[in-house]
């Protein structure tokens, strides 16, 4: 592709980190619903470079300014607003003690052929074999070996790429045993266990749908939790869960019932994570199948949270660059020094006269606290497929060492000529 040739090191540029934009420059378009825009700034902690904890992520923080641009393929259909991800859950987890497992724990099953995994905390003393486990289902008591179509250990699963915890025992129950509650018992249990139940054939699923994919510290995430059986919604009896930050900090959440068995929860991350990563909202639910059998399902929603340590000032200027490309200078206000990056998609009139996505640009530099600016440079080759008038869309401001998006605008700027 020729676009790779358009990628340039910005060490050639003095214009990459420009001074603050002038007050007489054009204002960015107003933010729209779905945009991510900081209303106040917070100074962030210093970046995580050189952490002593070997398990913590290691960051390499670049100090040299870099900018790139390339042409986008004709017909690129872009979605500037991140869509929250959700998938139906057919599984649940529970934590049990050795004493509970010795006495027997009840596991609700809604469909034949469930996969049950036991993962011990004590990987030596707590390791269980299928023959050492008993399952009572449908009036029959069977050993794990006899009740299972397939039995596998952690090492066997690791060979497939599925890295379950060490000393795990996985059993897929024989489908002919049917569904309904199962009593799982292990006389030789030791320590604690996580029991994972997955029901691949079940029509009963729980989905947790968030209203957004990213937010800023202090903003609210709203999640709706619902139980479905095929196309029909069924009421849930209870739902609970917690918020987990990338550094492992958890906050228990209060779920609300709308009276019809649909639950929702609001989560507001208030404290920055000590390490970069994504946040998780874990929901644990209980419902029933309409025939008196319990349905348990757990599900996880994933989203990004950023410390609003910088924002776009709202002022921008456009000009024809020395190489005949287009420079878009974006004002920036930073509460803390960091390496910030801006990126955006330039739309313009295509060959058929319609507005099309033509070019992508990304620019990053170290920015000191206070007022500053970053320049998106679209080089001439990247602009080959489009002409004026232009729109700058999917504009994003990212704090690179924090691996976070601090501002995002679906449509930022319109201009006829640079």
């Amino acid at each position: 592709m020729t676009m790779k040739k358009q990628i340039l090191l910005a060490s050639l540029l003095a214009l990459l980190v420009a001074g603050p934009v002038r007050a007489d420059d054009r204002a960015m378009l107003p933010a729209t619903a779905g945009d991510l825009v900081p209303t106040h700034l917070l100074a962030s902690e210093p970046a995580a470079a050189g952490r002593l904890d070997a398990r913590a992520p290691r960051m390499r923080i670049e100090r040299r300014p870099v900018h790139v641009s390339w042409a986008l393929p004709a017909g690129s259909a872009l979605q500037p607003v991140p869509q929250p991800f959700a998938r139906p859950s057919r599984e649940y987890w529970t934590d049990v003690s050795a004493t509970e497992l010795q006495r027997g724990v009840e596991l609700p099953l809604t469909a034949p052929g469930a996969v049950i995994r036991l993962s011990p905390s004590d990987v030596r003393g707590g390791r269980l074999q299928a023959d050492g486990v008993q399952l009572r289902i449908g009036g029959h008591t069977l050993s794990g070996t006899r009740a299972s179509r397939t039995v596998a250990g952690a090492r066997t699963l690791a060979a497939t790429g599925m890295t379950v915890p060490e000393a795990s025992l996985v059993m897929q129950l024989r489908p002919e045993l049917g569904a309904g509650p199962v009593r799982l018992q292990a006389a030789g249990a030791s320590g604690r266990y996580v029991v994972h139940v997955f029901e691949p054939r079940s029509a009963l699923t729980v989905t947790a749908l968030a209203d957004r994919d990213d937010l800023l510290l202090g903003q609210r995430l709203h999640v709706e939790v619902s139980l479905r059986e095929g196309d029909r919604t069924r009421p849930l009896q209870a739902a609970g869960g917690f918020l987990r930050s990338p550094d492992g900090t958890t906050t228990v959440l209060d779920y609300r019932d709308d009276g019809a068995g649909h639950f929702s929860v609001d989560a507001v991350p208030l404290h920055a994570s000590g390490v970069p990563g994504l946040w998780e909202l874990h929901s644990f639910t209980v419902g029933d199948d309409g025939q008196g059998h319990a349905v348990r399902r757990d599900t996880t929603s994933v989203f990004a949270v950023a410390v609003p340590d910088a924002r776009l000032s709202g002022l921008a200027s456009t000009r024809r660059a020395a190489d005949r490309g287009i420079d878009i200078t974006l004002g920036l206000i930073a509460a803390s020094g960091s390496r910030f990056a801006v990126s955006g998609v330039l739309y313009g009139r295509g060959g058929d006269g319609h507005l099309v996505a033509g070019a992508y640009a990304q620019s990053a530099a170290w920015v000191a606290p206070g007022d500053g600016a970053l320049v998106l440079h679209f080089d001439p080759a990247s602009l080959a497929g489009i002409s004026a008038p232009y729109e700058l869309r999917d504009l994003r401001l990212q704090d690179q060492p924090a691996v976070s998006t601090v501002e995002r605008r679906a449509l930022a700027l319109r201009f006829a000529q640079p």
Partner: protein
Amino acid sequence: MQRMMLMGMLAAASATVHAATGVALVHGTGKQTNAYGDYWQADMVEGIRNGLADRNNLLVVNCDFEQYMWDDRAAGCLAGQLTNFIQNRNIDRLIVITHSNGGNVMRWILSNPTWDARYPEIIRRIVKVDAIAPSSAGTPLADAAIAGNVFETSLGWLLGYKSDAVRQQQLGWMATYNQQYLLGTGGRPALPVAFRDVVGSDVVSAIWSSQAYCGGYTQSVGLEITQNWLSSCSDGFIECSSAQAAGTLWFKDRSRTSGGAVLNHNQSRRACFGLSSILANDIRE
């Protein structure tokens, strides 16, 4: 006029002769110190090497891909080894062949060229990335392997194996990374270079089938369990929809392999069913 044409032809030929083509093999999840022997194995590497005019222009990357793709031990390590390879061998035409999560680490570099001043110089030399079975949209097996670990933080005990690379390959995590920081998936801007997917579509594990033995047979029992999490089109670890979620489809296994064999996730990093020859031929193009 004839003289000018001749000079033009000579110049073009000269450019071809002096263009140094190199190949880099990028492994998947795991901390590799001998990816040649442990991850790819000699038959695969040497088969691919056959596609190079200069057989020395091949790099087998060894990095710590137990980390998040953006971690310095992952993308940073990959960038360092690619940069040294390009400089030491004067590579100006680089073909990157990735397997599994290695595709995500490579895509991080392609999507975030301003992250590191070394990235644009690498990208400038890449002619294509052949991504074999990339976990571009994650895998349900990562969710199943790691999701129960949430109890460790609430209960204070550890559940053994934990890897940021596995955490990152959960479906919800990859969906968010694809929307926030990565390019090349549906609705997102295209990558700066071609990212071509090789997709494994099924697993043959019948004990009587010779196809089941290439690359090793040990995972067959495990696959009977893991297939429960996966759609009908998968290589036993990655669903076809994930393997072709980023970039463009190059080929699905049956359409190019010897005898129309399928490539399970283990076989797609081994010299099974003519795969190394397919890759070698592609280097020559």
